[in-house]
């Protein structure tokens, strides 16, 4: 019973932890421009993150090695260093976007100036990371982030044409605007598979001292947690498809996104939406901060882990503090967090094969994984998604240029 309870808690955290600023921006924009037509891509994206994180979690549990360890082992120093640098650049952009999202949500809640809230937000993140235990960090933000479910209620209240919603789950190609459609397809897959999720997830398995007994939990977290998290993405897109698409509005601001909950549900909807966004984005910011420090430590072999006393893993501790400061420096220059989000998602897609391929190789290596190596099903998905990830990585930059970042 206790075990089921623990698994349920983990799943809840995974749902709340799934959605970040990238998912919000891309799902809402896709819904506003294409209605429900791109829902099927979210399914593919969710499948990708399930496949990827299940493998990462399993490798971490069996070998005690997290993603960037494996990347260096398989790619060697040189190519591994390229993967590290690419991963860290994407992490930094993602972090800057999430911090900007925190300040925007706080601004909509409080009305205080954006830059003041940036400072307060970053200080609060630092204190939370320093003080809270690892398990609590993960859970608190996951649970409160669940208030984003208000977008699901909003989507239903907006009375979408359900037969049109259903046809959105069938893959299709529009008659016009093909490049923009493809750009958003790439972005949606990128938003579902932002790399910090797997860096954090695999390192978290080691932080929480998972053993092969926890492989069931790993599978449940990945499959059920991310599937349900995917429902939040559906909700955001359906909400935007029902509200913004008919009006021809493409939300450029987080406040417009929150309108999606306010229009059908009033003030309480707005409040819940903003709190949900605030916690989801804060949780993602913390995961990204840690990911940056995990990656450095795992590539260079430093001691790491929130389970250690800070004085026992000083380079790791400095690593996350530096990440937080750099993320803050980027947003405080005044760059638009929504634009940073779009760039971070597109570049993360380009860099994805560099980490995905080593993980797929190791997950298949019987010398390394023993009887926990990929079975037929894991490989069917693992190799299938390799093809998807490569295609999307190749297409990302050309589509970004051709469509001028989805502007058409």
């Amino acid at each position, binding site marked *: 019973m206790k075990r089921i309870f623990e698994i349920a808690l983990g799943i809840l955290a995974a749902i709340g932890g799934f959605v970040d600023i990238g998912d919000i921006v891309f799902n809402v924009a896709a819904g506003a421009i294409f209605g429900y037509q791109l829902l099927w891509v979210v399914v593919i994206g969710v499948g990708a993150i399930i496949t990827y994180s299940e493998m990462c979690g399993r490798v971490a549990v069996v*070998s*005690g*090695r997290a993603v960037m*360890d494996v990347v*260096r*082992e*398989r790619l*060697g*120093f*040189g*190519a*591994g*260093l*390229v993967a590290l640098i690419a991963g860290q650049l994407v992490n930094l952009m993602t972090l800057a976007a999430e911090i900007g999202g925190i300040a925007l949500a706080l601004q909509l809640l409080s009305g205080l100036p954006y830059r003041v809230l940036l400072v307060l937000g970053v200080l609060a993140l630092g204190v939370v990371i*320093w*003080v809270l*235990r*690892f398990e609590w960090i993960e859970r608190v933000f996951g649970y409160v982030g669940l208030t984003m479910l208000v977008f699901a209620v909003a989507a239903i209240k907006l009375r979408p044409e359900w037969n049109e919603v259903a046809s959105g789950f069938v893959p299709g190609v529009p008659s016009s605007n093909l490049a923009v459609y493809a750009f958003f397809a790439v972005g949606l897959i990128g938003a579902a598979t932002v790399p910090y999720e797997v860096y954090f997830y695999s390192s978290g398995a080691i932080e929480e001292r998972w053993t092969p007994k926890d492989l069931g939990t790993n599978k449940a977290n990945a499959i059920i947690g991310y599937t349900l998290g995917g429902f939040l993405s559906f909700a955001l897109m359906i909400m935007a498809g029902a509200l913004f698409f008919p009006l021809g509005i493409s939300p450029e601001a987080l406040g417009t996104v929150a309108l999606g909950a306010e229009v059908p549900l009033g003030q309480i909807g707005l409040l819940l939406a903003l709190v949900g966004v605030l916690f989801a984005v804060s949780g993602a910011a913390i995961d990204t901060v840690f990911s940056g420090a995990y990656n450095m*430590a*795992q*590539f*260079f*072999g*430093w*001691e*790491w*882990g*929130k*389970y*250690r*006393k*800070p*004085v*026992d*893993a*000083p*380079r790791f*501790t*400095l690593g996350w*503090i530096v990440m937080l400061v750099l993320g803050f420096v980027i947003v405080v220059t005044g760059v638009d967090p929504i634009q940073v989000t779009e760039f971070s998602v597109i570049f993360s897609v380009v860099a994805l094969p560099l980490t995905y391929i080593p993980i797929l190789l190791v997950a298949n290596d019987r*010398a*390394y994984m023993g009887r926990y190596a990929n079975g037929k099903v894991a490989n069917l998905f693992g190799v299938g998604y390799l093809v998807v990830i490569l295609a999307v990585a190749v297409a990302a930059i050309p589509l970004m240029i051709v469509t001028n970042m989805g502007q058409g």
Partner: protein
Amino acid sequence: MSDTIDLALGVLDHQIVDSEDFRCGKVDDLELEGIREGSPRVEAILVGAPAWRGRGTMGRLAAALVRGRMVRVPWSEVSKVDSAVRLRKPGRELGLARAEGHARPLVEWIPGARNEG
């Protein structure tokens, strides 16, 4: 793990873990002996930025940018090789992870730095 270990895949670039279960560097390079005689064996593990010089263009570039000392850990100090290379002694006795000592003063003044995470 199987009985035979592939040096390139199973040792090089792997995590080094000491006898107290602390991570203390990566296998940045290996020192091999007896290749000419036809009976090559691993003499030592090389750890630290200067060891990256032997690791291709990116390695030379990184080694030129990062200061640091190279530590030579004789293979006789290795107790076991699984997904990590495990040592018989604490890393500090072998001169490993000295940079942690330089970084420590920067964090230990913060209240709670000695508390369990």
